[in-house]
């Protein structure tokens, strides 16, 4: 018999128990007799014809509430408490395997003064004879339920056959007895998940000095398996959490690299035109300040990641200027209509540059539309109202505000206040009124900083 055969799976036990139990409820007290033929040769309650006991009620509750214990420690505390209250033993203790200490650590204990083992005070190494009994296949020493009983160890030590013919076993029994003496253990119940020994439930003697009944030992086995399930689940969840964190970290790192690349590109665009120096940075800051005031706008829900799309689109909105000849871009006098037509191509060029980048599909669309006007008079597609994507409408306002409030070759800058008045004047025609009012709110709160560095541009991802 292998170790894990001795530890029937939770589902088997659960099925068995529920079947058996509902038979009781139907008033069919003999239903359990059929269980003798089950492949699971388990004596738990098989000879039980009495009405349900407190253990059964407890088990029933435990199986229902098991799933709710996020921390297995809570379940174990409940188990220890229940045993202590219901069984009147001198002491109860649970040792659990802790990977970081490579040993079994006492995690909960109850009992009378001097017998209660202080939590965290003791440990058993993995090669402790008491652990080996369960982790190795020393089937002889363990009853068919999987429990190690002190009285069985004593009985085996008294056997002449073992003393005379199996000296190895005899020596091992002595070591086990000694370990049980140290813990004053009367019963040791293993807690397995698959083939791994997760822990041991240690029980002292009953205060009355009586032996444990089969019903009681069956109860322990079921509890131990419940606990194993809960512990294993918790460990799986913990592993999953750390994996998720790891992936999050990778994502953040990639994301940072990406934002920094966008910032570098934006800086390259800005560098071509001394008059627009810092333009991209300011526009990005304005956009993010406006976005703060748009919280809860239903349209935001259409974006997979609105703030990210906004930040990247704002950073790259003028990337198409790369394709505009220097003599037009840097012209110090007013543009001719032909030159203006050239300049107007920059939104299409920008979208074309970004189009091959699949992940930037949204961004390309926004950049193409950032020169559209709310009334349909913009370019390149003459989109109107909400047909212009939201991010593009935000960039349009921020872009115009920055253009007005900075010097150009052909005109002086307006003040911020004048710029705001101009936005108001064009609200509903050139600009989306919703965006303009969000901009005004941000302006009144002092979040539109025309000359200051803003925290949004630092690219460390904190803006998300």
């Amino acid at each position: 018999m292998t170790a894990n055969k001795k530890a029937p799976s939770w589902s088997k036990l659960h099925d068995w128990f529920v079947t058996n139990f509902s038979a009781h409820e139907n008033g069919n007290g003999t239903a359990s007799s059929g269980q003798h033929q089950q492949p699971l040769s388990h004596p738990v309650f098989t000879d039980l014809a009495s009405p349900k006991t407190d253990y059964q009620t407890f088990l029933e509750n435990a199986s229902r509430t098991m799933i709710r214990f996020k921390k297995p420690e809570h379940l174990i505390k409940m188990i220890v408490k229940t045993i202590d209250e219901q069984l009147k033993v001198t002491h109860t203790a649970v040792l659990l395997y802790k990977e970081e200490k490579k040993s079994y650590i006492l995690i909960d204990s109850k009992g009378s003064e001097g017998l209660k083992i202080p939590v965290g005070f003791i440990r058993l190494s993995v090669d402790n004879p008491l652990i080996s009994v369960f982790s190795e296949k020393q089937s002889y020493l363990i009853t068919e339920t999987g429990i190690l009983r002190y009285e069985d160890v004593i009985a085996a030590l008294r056997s002449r056959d073992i003393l005379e013919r199996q000296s190895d076993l005899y020596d091992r029994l002595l070591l086990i007895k000694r370990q049980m003496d140290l813990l004053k253990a009367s019963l040791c119940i293993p807690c397995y998940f698959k083939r791994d020994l997760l822990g041991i439930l240690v029980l002292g003697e009953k205060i009355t000095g009586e032996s444990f009944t089969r019903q009681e030992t069956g109860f322990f086995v079921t509890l131990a398996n419940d606990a194993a399930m809960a512990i294993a689940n918790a460990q799986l969840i913990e592993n999953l959490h750390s994996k998720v964190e790891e992936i999050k970290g990778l994502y953040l790192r990639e994301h940072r690299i990406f934002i920094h690349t966008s910032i570098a590109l934006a800086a390259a665009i800005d560098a071509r035109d001394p008059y627009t120096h810092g333009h991209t940075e300011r526009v990005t800051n304005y956009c993010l300040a406006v976005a703060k005031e748009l919280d809860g706008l239903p349209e935001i829900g259409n974006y997979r990641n609105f703030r990210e799309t906004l930040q990247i689109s704002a950073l790259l909105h003028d990337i198409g200027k790369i394709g505009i000849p220097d003599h037009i871009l840097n012209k110090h006098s007013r543009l001719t209509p032909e030159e203006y037509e050239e300049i107007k191509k920059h939104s299409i060029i920008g979208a074309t540059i970004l189009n091959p980048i699949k992940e930037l599909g949204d961004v390309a669309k926004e950049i193409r539309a950032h020169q559209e006007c709310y009334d349909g008079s913009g370019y390149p597609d003459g989109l109107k109202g909400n047909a212009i994507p939201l991010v593009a409408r935000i960039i349009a306002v921020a872009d115009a505000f920055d253009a007005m409030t900075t010097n150009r070759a052909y005109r002086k800058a307006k003040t911020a206040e004048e710029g705001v008045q101009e936005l108001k004047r064009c609200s509903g025609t050139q600009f989306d009124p919703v965006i303009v009012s969000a901009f005004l709110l941000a302006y009144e709160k002092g979040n539109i900083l025309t000359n200051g560095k803003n925290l949004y541009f630092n690219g460390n991802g904190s803006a998300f």
Partner: protein
Amino acid sequence: MTMRKILVVDDESDICDFVKNFLQERGYQVLTALNGEDAITIAKAEKPELILLDIKMKGMDGIAALKHLREINGNQKVIMVTALDDQDKMDEASRMGACDYVTKPLMLDYLEHTVEKNLKERA
């Protein structure tokens, strides 16, 4: 032969109770103290052969208590009880004359063995 006297010092009463019970069952006379000050008073009055002294305690810690205990009796045998990762404190205690140490969480057989071993060695 008189029962050998051991003083157990730990600010957790559960630990004092448990260790006291554990050692009593192994034939020792056991006294307990919940802090360094009490430990010093008891050590003066009772002259235990061996002291089990927890390093991390509220108020006077094990290192300070060790200093006083060794002043009272220069041959006092003291076994320090300490957390696994407390190497610096252990080194300090050893310089100040602690004769041995056990680390928490401890193995009961090791505790038993360490106590026996140190009582055998005559100072």
